[in-house]
């Protein structure tokens, strides 16, 4: 297992490196001149040329890439062009807040989603399965910004139970307020994801229940619950694990809409800001962070996969 872990870790390193090349490439494609972005619309051409020289923007792209990449290795993520402050703290603070949101959301999605999925599968065709199915379709279908606004109006304005927007650090005004600020964004986020995960779990559970080893377990006369828990679940959860890993990546950097509506200062919004303002260093660092987290989440999924499914350690190719 150690060797396997190290192998996968090495793979992550390789993927992250490839990502760095790709991200650097993509961000270079963005229109808009960095020097222009810094100096503003009143700058003269000479000033722009001078700044470009200072920033090394005239160097070949691989020199620029290498400089950027080495800087990152040393923990230097550069300076935000627009905000004129170091990118590192900006990104990592936002990441911390996103991570909290993601961690809570993913735990809920994993727990509730799989539970509902298993319930649907084992109660296939019964009323509760049908109701759940309908609810799942509904939650998949409604755009999250719709929920978000509805939730704010209902819980913050009409009922006044929860703060409408924002975020408070846990140390600042106590756990209660910290939790209160997280409830609505988390709830909005998890609705759709739970629906998706539970549908997936349902179908993979149904498939597992049809497998020969479940038949064997029945033939052994094992009680139903034991069959579910010990024989079916670990195998049925494999596809779910993969999807959860993807969800982690999305939750870290891709919940722009929820972050926007709830004014939650997470990484997604920071990245949008960077894209809109052509703040290339900020964008590059943020995207590196998001993709690295995704790669790590995938690593986690792989290891979990291997732990649940001993075949993987030997059987699966790198793809």
């Amino acid at each position, binding site marked *: 297992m150690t060797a396997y872990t190290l192998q996968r870790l090495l793979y992550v390193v390789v993927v992250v490196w490839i990502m760095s090349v790709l991200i650097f490439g993509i961000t270079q494609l963005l229109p808009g001149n960095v020097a222009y972005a810094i100096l503003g619309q009143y700058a003269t051409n000479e000033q722009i040329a001078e700044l470009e020289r200072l920033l090394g923007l005239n160097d070949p792209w691989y020199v620029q890439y290498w400089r950027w990449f080495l800087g990152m290795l040393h923990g230097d993520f550069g300076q935000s062009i627009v905000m004129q402050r170091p990118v590192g703290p900006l990104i990592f603070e936002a990441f911390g807040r996103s991570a909290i949101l993601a961690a809570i959301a993913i735990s809920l999605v994993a727990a509730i989603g799989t539970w509902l999925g298993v319930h649907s599968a084992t109660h296939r065709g019964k009323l509760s399965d049908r109701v759940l199915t309908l609810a799942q379709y509904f939650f998949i279908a409604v755009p999250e910004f719709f929920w978000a606004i509805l939730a704010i109006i209902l819980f913050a304005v009409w009922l006044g139970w929860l703060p409408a927007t924002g975020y408070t650090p846990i140390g600042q005004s106590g756990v209660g307020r910290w939790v209160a600020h997280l409830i609505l964004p988390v709830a909005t986020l998890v609705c759709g994801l739970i629906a998706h995960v539970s549908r997936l779990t349902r179908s993979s559970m149904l498939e597992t229940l049809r497998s*020969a*080893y479940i038949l064997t377990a029945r033939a052994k*006369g094992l009680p139903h619950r034991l069959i579910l828990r010990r024989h079916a679940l670990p195998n049925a959860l494999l596809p779910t694990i993969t999807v959860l890993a993807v969800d982690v990546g999305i939750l870290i950097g891709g919940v722009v809409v929820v972050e926007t509506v709830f004014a939650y200062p997470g990484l997604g919004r920071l990245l949008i800001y960077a894209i809109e303002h052509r703040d290339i260093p900020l964008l590059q660092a943020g995207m590196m962070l998001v993709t690295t987290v995704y790669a790590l989440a995938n690593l986690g999924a792989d290891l979990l996969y291997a732990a649940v499914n001993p075949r993987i350690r030997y059987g699966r190719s790198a793809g």
Partner: protein
Amino acid sequence: MRGDRIGVVFQDASAALNPALAVGLQVAEPLMVHRRLSRGAALERAIELLGEVGVRQPAEVARRYPHQLSGGMKQRALIAMALSCEPDLLLLDEPTTALDVTIEAQILDLLEALRSRRGLSMLFVSHNLGIVERICDDLAVLYAGRIVEQGPTEAVFSQPRHPYTKGLLAALPRVDRDRITRLAPIPGGLPDLTQPQEGCGFRPRCPFSVAACALPQALVSGGDSVLVRCHRSAELSGEAWPAERQPAASRRREPGVRIIEGDRLAKGFRLGGLLRRIRFERGLPRLGPAPEIRAVDDVSVRINRGEILGIVGESGSGKSTLARLMLRLLDADAGTLRYKSMPVPQRPGREFRRRAQIVFQNPESSLNPRKRVGQILARPLSLFSGANQGDLERRIVRLLTLVRLSASYSDRYPHQLSGGEKQRVSIARAMASEPEVLVCDEPVSALDVSVQAAILNLFADLRDRLGVAYLFISHDISVIAHLADRVLVMYGGAVVEEGTLDEVLHPPYHPYTEALLSAVPLVGARERASQRIRLPAEATEPSKGCRFAPRCPRRIGGLCDEVAPPVREPAPDHRIACHIPIADLARIEPVLVRRQS
């Protein structure tokens, strides 16, 4: 009661074991549930059970996961699981179908031992008549969901009473009989089971059917404590299943005209990608050498026009790889391939592609499910002979006729065909380009006996009428014995013996050939039991000398482990690679006892 008084062993052990749980736990589970043993006690008992079913190092195996076990071990674990609560009855649904002949033989031994040691009753489901004859006391023959004949195995086999049973036995190729040129297939297929059946379900396929067969049939006594569901059983008692009317075509043989020749072919497979080769030594990554499997190692194959070369060997011995090498579907690492004495390049030209074709084992996967039979056959026709539309249709019909399918099949999709029909279509496809060499990679092992008989007949016809040469791969010795002119016995990627059919089936032969022959359950070979040779489970350490040495029951000492065996020729073109002198090999008692039919 389930799991307690009755144990069940399912068909496919690799599917029946939970991949995510250690084997020991799976064996122990029924004990924890039914006997209320603690986990520890149950695991201990599970290890005992594994030992009892012949697993070596049971404590070690108990900790492993299914994917880390060989097929035979998995089947043993499954049996141990079924036995855990000491049931009175063991249900076995094709417990050996997924296994290799040599492993199959071991499992059958185990079952026999358990039966005598524990006094177990078993319900044994199988389509392999050889196994049934060997292991079963009583036998029930099912057709279309009904028992058509039931009684002591001996009695049923020696004198089949129901036409279906007769047909089954007639369709069976048998090593123990003199070679008959043609097998007798049962025409037609299973009736539609969604329709209620009134009378005898076998009626439409039965050569003896009369009007009264449409009436409901009762199970009546047929003598010798045999029950039979056929109202004509008594009057048909002397009647044998009719042989095929069509006479065998006279065989065109052109001995000595070499059509294809592979010389010292070799192929190794590297395992895993770059990443898989990375090893960690004291935390530092190292690029290790790629582990390699020598799937085919220095094998030479020669086939003459109109000749059938049979290849036998256990699973993984490199038969399929050799077949692909012969067609250049895989690039050989070494060796040369000659077609009509001309070397075949890495990317063979049209002529070779046209004249060398292949038929695969699995009829389900060898036809594109999205194409109609007509389309499937049209492609090689238009590709190789550029036939126009009308011409094409005519030739498709001709091909279908060749494999005895009616022209209407041209519009069907593969899923609308039975297994045998599919296999015929893939033979027709291979024949479409008028090949001179046909490589058949286990073309009948997925088929049931009656369909198999029809296909084997077809192969023989094509050989006889068109002079097609075959490389015919099978792990079923009876099939090879029925069809082949010459036989190649492979073990571990190399040829251990090669010769004419008779030479290979009779001593002197290679110890592995002997083991293989003795492991095959053959109908009418019950009395062989005393001489059965059992190979130990696969060796872990590859030997530097003879590949077979670690498992060889006739190993003569260190020589076998150290030195590659010499190839001896007891007769012209009969080669045996073994250290044992030919004279000693010739003295071995034959494992096949021929009976007069």
